[in-house]
């Protein structure tokens, strides 16, 4: 395994919203695991409250959100608000799914650090995490 960090970075990956399209989230979860991260996949239809609960319980440094239903402009900010409410803004959030460019800018303003859209190489996501959490 390439990562030799003393404490491996823990990532909660979650599907928020009502859609059940879990191909992408599963592929990303496996790739992150293979890259040496500790990955906790919450499963489908997580509310923002459930996602933040899971991240706190798992002592995760990162939350990865996946959505394909078009509700990202409601649900991603709701996760950010919930993090604020629970005083857990040190947890960083990234996301992926069918998210138009204009929305990406708006979501970044709300504190989502990065959005990966369809066609992103897995390596790009891993490299982003490596930069974000240098060993």
């Amino acid at each position: 395994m390439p990562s030799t960090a003393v404490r491996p970075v823990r990532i909660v990956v979650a599907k928020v919203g009502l859609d059940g399209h879990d191909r992408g989230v599963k592929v990303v979860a496996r790739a992150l695991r293979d890259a040496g991260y500790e990955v906790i996949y919450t499963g489908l239809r997580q509310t923002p409250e459930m996602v933040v609960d899971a991240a706190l319980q798992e002592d995760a440094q990162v939350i990865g959100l996946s959505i394909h239903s078009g509700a990202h402009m409601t649900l991603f900010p709701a996760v950010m608000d919930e993090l604020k409410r629970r005083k857990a803004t040190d947890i960083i959030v990234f996301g992926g799914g069918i998210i138009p460019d204009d929305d990406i800018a708006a979501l970044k303003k709300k504190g989502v650090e990065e959005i990966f859209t369809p066609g992103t190489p897995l390596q790009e996501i891993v490299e982003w995490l490596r930069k974000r959490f240098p060993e």
Partner: protein
Amino acid sequence: MKVRARDADQVWQEEFEAAPERDDGIETSTISGIPLKPLYTREDLTRRDQEFPGQFPYTRGIHPSGYRGRLWTMRQFSGFATAEETNRRYKYLLANGQTGLSVAFDMPTLMGQDSDAPTSRGEVGHCGVAIDSLADMETLFDGIPLGEITTSMTINSPAAILLCMYIAVAEKQGVPADMLGGTLQNDILKEFIAQKEFIFPPAPSMRLVVDSIEYCAKEVPKWNTISISGYHIREAGSTAAQELAFTLADGMAYVDACLERGMHIDDFASRLSFFFDAHIDFFEEIAKFRAARRIWARWMRERYGAQQERSWKLRFHTQTAGVSLTAQQPELNIARTAIEALAAVLAGTQSLHTNAMDEVLGLPTDKAARLALRTQQLIAYETGVANTIDPLGGSYFIEALTDEMERQAEAYFKRIEEVGGVIPAIESGFFQKEIADAAFRYQQELEQKSRLVVGVNEFINEEEEPIEILRIDPRLESQQSQRVQDVRRKRDQAKCANTLQSLRKAAAGTDNLMPYILEAVRAYATEGEIMQAMIEVFGTYTETAVV
């Protein structure tokens, strides 16, 4: 010098081996990983009686006249925002030559909840049209004569409710149920396997499916009660053979469930329909469709003892592969979709949806939706491919690949049987793992560039031109919530509550639930209320997530 026929193959073999091979590292197997030979010959053909369209086992098509008799139905899946807006889009598509309707519902509707439910926040009208009660359904089909068109409805867990709404709207138009034609997706097994829009546990879910099949056999005889779907299995990342095998296995599970109910195979088999993906690997897809017909006919006749020919015939709808579309250089999606649609047509699909180029970014704009429909019209009327039935039949390659598909599907049927059948296989995560493995393998091939996707991992444009995206007005959600609240306020409360109480009681017993649901729909009970009444009896299902 004349080379003798017997030696020509050896000559070719030697010349092929002597010739330099491309060394670009690109896979020569199908997109599903089936190894391919560089050349197929007569030697690759299995000895079998000559096959004809319209004759068992229907490898070459279910109609003796193919598209000479009738072209496929051009059925574009469409729905967004409110019932009013979608009604306008339907009238637009019908005016542009579309020959059947296909309703896309939004996520709350698909998940059986009303637009004003807390978990519907941000989802109303995004992935399709929001339908909360009969009132919305009346608006959706306003001015569209339900006795004259056929309608496909993509809905699963709450399928029985939406079908009852359709029957009730037809009643109001004065169209009796036995005149209604269309298709209900109603395929809960693939929800557990792939798309994950399940609500109830498998057993009551299957009961509702059988209830609707049984009810329609008597009351709505021209309705296709189920569309057994490989599409979502494929989109979730399966291979072509997995799509074929899992879908047909699901079909057999529904047949078994109907037989257990005491129905006779020939009373319902002909109303089972299928729905497949047309992916980008052209020949593999054609082989898949042809194999599907052959396998189903064989199982229906030999294993299930169906007597009537119409019970043996696998009829299918096709949609081009959403998952093959790229957000990068999206205009290329028009070309991809055309190639995929052509495969479906060459394999004799009964109906077809062509994806719009912008569906990878959002719901299609009017222009993109029209281009997608025009692509089908171009294939139908310009290319000449509809003039000959099963034009690729007899191709050494296609026939060999059709046989290979059949062989791989049969191998999966054995494995599914070994784990106890479809529902135990779902509960143990068998399908889910097979699909996730295939999806991951494909993604790795993309990363390693042993497969190329134009514009994504090769031939990349540095600057992407932005394309127009259909936006759903955020005010829609509160308007639709208001609308469902108005419906709840204005109806006859006592009558509505009574129908829901009767439904609860019936759900706890063994009656067919369709008449009870129809009564609740007529009393303007909302979708969410009807689902809730059944959840109180059936409970809900949670999947153990497998990564």
